[in-house]
């Protein structure tokens, strides 16, 4: 499952929107059957790369909603450029996705 992302040029800035599939478990909940605490499992970092360098980064805590949504505007990329997004979570799992600026 890849990160779903869209990038659009708007008023000279690139607007990037991304949706990720992730539980974003806070570590504060308990299993309703066993009563055992459910370990925290959440994305920690999302990075957007453009032409080999970092354009934007988001550090996420467990208070980001399940299936995280992220949007940001940045200047730099041009229409037709490809942006790469990737995340890593606190268990070391990763995922990535791409968007071409429209």
């Amino acid at each position, binding site marked *: 499952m890849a990160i779903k992302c869209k990038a659009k040029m708007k008023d000279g*800035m690139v*607007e990037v929107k991304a949706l990720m599939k992730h539980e974003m478990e*806070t*570590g*504060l909940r308990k299993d309703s059957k066993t009563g055992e605490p459910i*370990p*925290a499992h959440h994305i*920690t*970092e999302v*990075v957007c*790369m453009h032409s080999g360098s*970092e*354009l*934007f*980064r*988001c*550090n*996420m*805590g*467990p*208070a*980001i*909603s*399940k299936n*995280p*949504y*992220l*949007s*940001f*505007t*940045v*200047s730099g990329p041009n229409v037709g450029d490809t942006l*790469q997004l*990737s*995340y*890593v*979570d*606190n*268990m*070391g*799992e*990763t995922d*990535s996705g791409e968007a071409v600026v429209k």
Partner: protein
Amino acid sequence: MKRREFNFRLASITGFGVGIASGLMPISVLANWPTAAFDTETTEDAANALFGESGMIETDAITFKAPDIAENGRVVPVNINVGLNNIEEIALMVPENPAPLVSTFVMSNQSNVAVGTRIKMGKTSPLVAVVKADGKVYTASSKEIKVTIGGCGG
């Protein structure tokens, strides 16, 4: 708090391993997640952990778009507009959450940016943004967002 640090250390290690093995992950993903800031219990401590204790400037150049009443505290859409120059980092906080720091958005010297995400809110609270721009630290807070109590007792 200990557990979270442990988790994170574990993550750093395994994350590194997975990244190298799959060859997919950019090296920059492995930079430090601000553990200390995410572990604090007040917005002030979180801001200090992120940007140092040099004091914050109140500004109306930071504006929020968020619902008056959150339909569901699990998913509260939040947008922040920052009308400042040379923005380096934006921190989003919910003072009434057990750990106020929700996320930080890091960029290099951008101007007039907007960021948005969806967040969990345990109870009714305003939002606070702390922004590092042009070497200074700015802050603003939103109006209160009411988190609804479920109606059906079930």
